């Protein structure tokens, strides 16, 4: 794939001189003192970047595969712990008062045991323990007295209580507030599901056997193919239009980039408000002008039956809207790229073609298109990958409802709505593998630039 990125378009003004200094150096140059210092410095300069990318990108990528084979839910992220509640009964006011300390304990985890569980609680002086729970004992280090209770192994959900009875000796040293002031400290050993070696194929089984999985995959592919192709096509049109010089061109070029530059959150909600079934401009306008009878729930309606010459076609409303949004938001990108490429085509070849009597369409087909074929292919691949991975747009517009649930929204649904992290990770793996296969096939058959 490295060669592919070699042909990735660089903006003309970013690298003023072709990579003169990138010429391959013979291996022998790496020897020698100076060269060794240079090598060390290079590694030093790259080290922070390397660590950050490793930790935040590559490690999670591997971790995602790891999680996809594990029965992990959102709840498992909070590690199992021992929960102790302390209650006092009786009065602690004057000498001779009898009171009870009760410790209620439980294993917070619903799944995993705790081993060698124990807790310690600091207690003040000034009282005498009369009845001690057999699990506990009192120790003193200097003047500090501590109750230590050994609970042993606790199964998942296990709970119980320990009782201690005591009699007050010196009310100046002990009262309810002092007794309650110290919180019990717990000690236990538990396994962390994220790091254990417990694996399962359950997540994949669940993902592939789910009734809607193939629908979701199909929606993803429709969304990606039409969104990518549409954005490229609109970008191509826009580039053709902006190629001509006219007053105000640079202002309009800036305006055309707005959808891409503005935050997704702002433009997505603008669309939601614009197409709102009750108070949206589009619906009110359509019904006022007399095109539709009732309001259309653009982002909430799965499909509408359209009759064309007696043929009924099921038209997916919400999915089309989401695709239109995708095209609207990302055509500026293809536009920018294609325009830059077209402006770099030497004008004299067009003059020559004109002399030979080639019409504008012929010029476009046989001159411009071959020149931009390479960049169209690159753009298609990159946009395909990014559109396939697009989550925010659909999530904000429809929440994945009304037939717009793509694989990415499914990752979120599985992992965070149903709280099954493992299944979400499994869907993410499906996405990754799909894109990998697509990229390999695409790069093998993609057209090369004429230039």
């Amino acid at each position, binding site marked *: 794939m490295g060669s592919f990125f070699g042909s990735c378009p*660089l903006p003309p003004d970013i690298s003023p001189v072709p990579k003169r*200094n990138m010429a391959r150096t013979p291996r022998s140059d790496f020897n020698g003192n100076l060269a060794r210092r240079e090598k060390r410095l290079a590694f030093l300069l790259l080290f922070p970047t390397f660590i950050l990318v490793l930790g*935040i990108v590559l490690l999670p990528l591997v971790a995602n595969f790891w999680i996809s084979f594990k029965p992990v839910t959102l709840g498992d992220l909070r590690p199992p712990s021992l929960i102790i509640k302390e209650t006092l009964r009786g009065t602690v006011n004057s000498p001779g008062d009898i009171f009870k300390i009760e410790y209620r304990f439980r294993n917070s985890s619903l799944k995993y045991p705790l081993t060698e569980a124990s807790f310690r609680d600091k207690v003040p002086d000034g009282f005498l323990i009369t009845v001690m729970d057999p699990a506990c004992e009192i120790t003193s280090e200097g003047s500090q007295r501590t109750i230590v209770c050994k609970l042993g192994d606790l199964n998942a959900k296990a709970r119980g209580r320990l009782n201690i009875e005591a009699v007050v000796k010196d009310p100046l040293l002990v009262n309810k507030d002092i007794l309650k002031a110290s919180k019990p400290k717990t000690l236990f050993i538990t396994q962390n599901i994220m790091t254990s070696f417990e694996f399962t194929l359950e997540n994949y089984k669940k993902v592939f056997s789910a009734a809607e999985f193939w629908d979701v995959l199909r929606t993803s592919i429709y969304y990606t193919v039409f969104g990518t192709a549409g954005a490229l096509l609109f970008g191509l049109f826009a580039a053709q*239009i902006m190629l001509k010089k006219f007053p105000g061109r640079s202002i309009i070029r800036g305006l055309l980039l707005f959808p891409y530059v503005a*935050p997704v959150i702002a433009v997505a*909600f603008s669309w939601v408000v614009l197409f709102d079934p009750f108070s949206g401009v589009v619906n009110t306008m359509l019904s006022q002008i007399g095109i539709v009878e009732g309001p259309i729930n653009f982002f909430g309606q799965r499909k509408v039956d359209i009759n064309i010459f007696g043929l009924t076609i099921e038209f997916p409303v919400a999915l089309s809207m989401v695709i239109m949004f995708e095209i609207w938001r990302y055509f500026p990108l293809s536009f920018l790229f294609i325009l830059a490429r077209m402006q770099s085509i030497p004008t004299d070849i067009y003059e020559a073609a004109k002399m030979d009597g080639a019409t504008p369409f012929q010029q476009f087909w046989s001159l411009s298109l071959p020149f931009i074929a390479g960049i169209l292919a690159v753009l298609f691949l990159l946009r395909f990958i990014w559109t396939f991975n697009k989550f925010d747009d659909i999530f904000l517009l429809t929440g994945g409802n009304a037939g717009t649930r793509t694989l990415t929204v499914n990752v979120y649904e599985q992992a965070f709505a149903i709280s099954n992290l493992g299944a979400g990770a499994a869907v993410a793996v499906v*996405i990754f593998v799909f894109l990998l296969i697509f990229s390999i096939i695409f790069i093998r058959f993609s057209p090369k630039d004429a230039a």
Partner: protein
Amino acid sequence: MKFWMTGFFASALTGFVWVALWHLLLTIMAILATGAALTLALGPAALSGLVAGVFAALQRPTTLCNRRMIGIILVAFLLFSFSLGTPFDSGGLLPTWQRLLLLLLASVGGWLTIEKTVGPAKVGFMGRYAIEEFYLRLFWGIGLIMFVLIVAVPFYVMVMTSLKSQQSLLINPLDFSIDYSLGVTKLLRSYIELFTDYGFMTLLMNSALVSVATVIITLLFSVPGAYAVAKLRFPGRYWLSGSILLIYLIPAIILVIPLYAIFSQLGMRNSLFALCIVYPATTIPVAVYMLRGYFAGLPSDLDDAGLMDGLSRLQIITRIAMPLSMPAIASVALYVFMIAWNEFLFAFMFLDDVKLFTLSRGIVSLNSSEVPRQHLMAGAVIATAPVLFLFLWFERFFVSGLTAGSVKG
């Protein structure tokens, strides 16, 4: 001879399309500007345009000295008579001066665009080259208007909705007229409420903090990294410069579950710090890629001269390479700022605490039935304004950053 290759047919079609389009656009604008329930009458408009187009084709520039004036009057007259005296407003909802203004705009705009499109066309058969150019002029004009409209309308609705009150939105969603008599505080009520009741100041500060921190961290990491890849010789250099963008193509949705899990277990998920290390990690590869190209373009003689004068490599970076590549660094900074400011996924997943919300995260919670729409749109404007302002101010740097980083989406 095919009929569609005659100037006569092409001109008639041009008039038909242009005047109908002007009629449509002006009607919609009038509805949005006044809130009046106007109805659309495309038929008469298209018919007027057709006649005007035929006139434009038949009338050579040489035969009438004041062709433009006559054309405009002709379109106005046709629009007026075909619509039986009520162009734009069959219900009589608008005051007379507004109707006259609309008629004037439609006829001036309609005729000028017809004239511009028809140009020096012949009436009869035009030949392949000339007729293709003719139709391309028509499509060019229509295309330009359509593109400007589809891009501008959502932003227009966003700004205008944010200035309306709840009642006026419910009464007539199409009414985007601004009542200046309300005074500034009433008009900007949604904005003021967002800042006083919804804590938007905190959101704004959080977003600014995270974005600026991301820019700084990205530059701190990527400038030395890019310099090393561009100028220093070390094994693995070619492999590295080729594969650095591959990292960039790894989708965020695949990283979000493991990062969520790891950060949760470390107890640092719900913090701006988490965002400040996740964002740079996703932007550094492209920053290295962009800067590497620029650094490689700087002549190596400069570095050698610096070394001769006893500068260390780090000094060369800060005193020679960086000052010379300020345009590229500005591009990277703006691009990274935009990415961080607009980022939604990680902010949405990571942050639970309202005090830590960034703008993206905070505005999502405005999207509920309890919060009025104009507040949501005011929030959208607040989120959009800084980044659009930067974009317009530094467009040149921004565009080169976008083209280099535009694999991102």
